[in-house]
């Protein structure tokens, strides 16, 4: 039982210390470890050097970041030979505003936006943050550039084998470049 749970129980008890105990709190916890697979590890290592990498499919040319080691459309393997360095500028292709519900473990309290990006030169990232832009101003077509975490703070702790490019320990988010919005033809129908 966690301290928080015990605190809850104590509070209940404070209401009526003599009431029968009718419930029991359980705190099921399962912890396991796994090693990052090689392609994700290379992606994480590159982020620590302030580089974004991806794999370019040798058949169709689509760029995958984080690299997956295969192109699911062409069903071909991609390897280190297909690795390319990506730019750290791009276009917002879409966004979602999340209004936090205060469920267990939720730390956010205010609505925030998660954006999908198409990087200049290829590659798509999703679940990215725009920390300095009011939620109401986030829109498709915005031109943005990366905000790297400071050297001393940079980490890749939140990257897993099932990551989709969210790497908040290394990439703090994205900021508008101030350039005019991209025309829709530049990013429409190019994401996935």
């Amino acid at each position: 039982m966690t301290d928080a749970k015990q605190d809850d129980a104590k509070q209940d008890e404070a209401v009526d210390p003599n009431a029968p105990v009718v419930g029991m709190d359980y705190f099921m916890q399962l912890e396991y470890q796994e090693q990052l697979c090689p392609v994700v590890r290379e992606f994480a290592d590159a982020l620590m050097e302030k580089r974004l990498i991806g794999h370019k499919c040798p058949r169709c040319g689509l760029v995958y970041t984080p690299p997956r080691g295969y192109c699911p459309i062409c069903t071909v393997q991609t390897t280190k030979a297909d690795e390319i360095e990506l730019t750290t500028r791009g276009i917002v292709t879409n966004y979602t505003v999340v209004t936090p519900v205060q469920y267990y473990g939720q730390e956010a309290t205010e609505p925030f936006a998660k954006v999908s990006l198409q990087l200049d030169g290829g590659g798509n990232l999703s679940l990215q943050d725009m920390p300095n832009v009011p939620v109401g101003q986030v829109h498709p077509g915005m031109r943005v550039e990366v905000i790297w975490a400071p050297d001393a703070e940079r980490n890749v702790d939140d990257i897993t084998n099932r990551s989709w490019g969210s790497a908040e320990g290394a990439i703090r988010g994205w900021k508008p470049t101030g350039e005019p919005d991209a025309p829709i033809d530049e990013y429409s129908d190019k994401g996935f």
Partner: protein
Amino acid sequence: MFYSRTLAAKRLTTHTIEFPYTRTLGPVNSAFLTGLRDGQLLGIKSRDGRVLCPPTEWDPTTGEGLDVELVDVGPGGVVTTWAWVVEPTRKHPLDHPFAFALIQLDGADTGLMHAVDAGSIDNMQTGMRVTARWKSERIGHITDVEAFVPEATL
């Protein structure tokens, strides 16, 4: 909830899945845990007159429902079997080596599984007498008894 972290050097990710929930206790377990909160150990009488602790809702021999007729047991008892835990995990009741033991409390005919805080495996013996060490703040949980300790040390 679900979260993960990576050990930078080894690129090991640790995943933690957590699921907090509350279950209702029913009449017998409710009485047992209410007793623990009040610093009291309780057993239940089976159809053949034996006293079961921990108490069950059903007679273990016939499967019939038991009347909620609870009797005081303990706080002392006898260790009937035990296993020494050399390296406790963080989920174990004590953070130093201890024994998991079946303790037949005075007045009971069955064993209650709990921790025995004996200090050393050398102090453990089948048949030894132990007694409950209560927590000062109790909430109605089996851990309200922090551990059992050898009677001789009191």
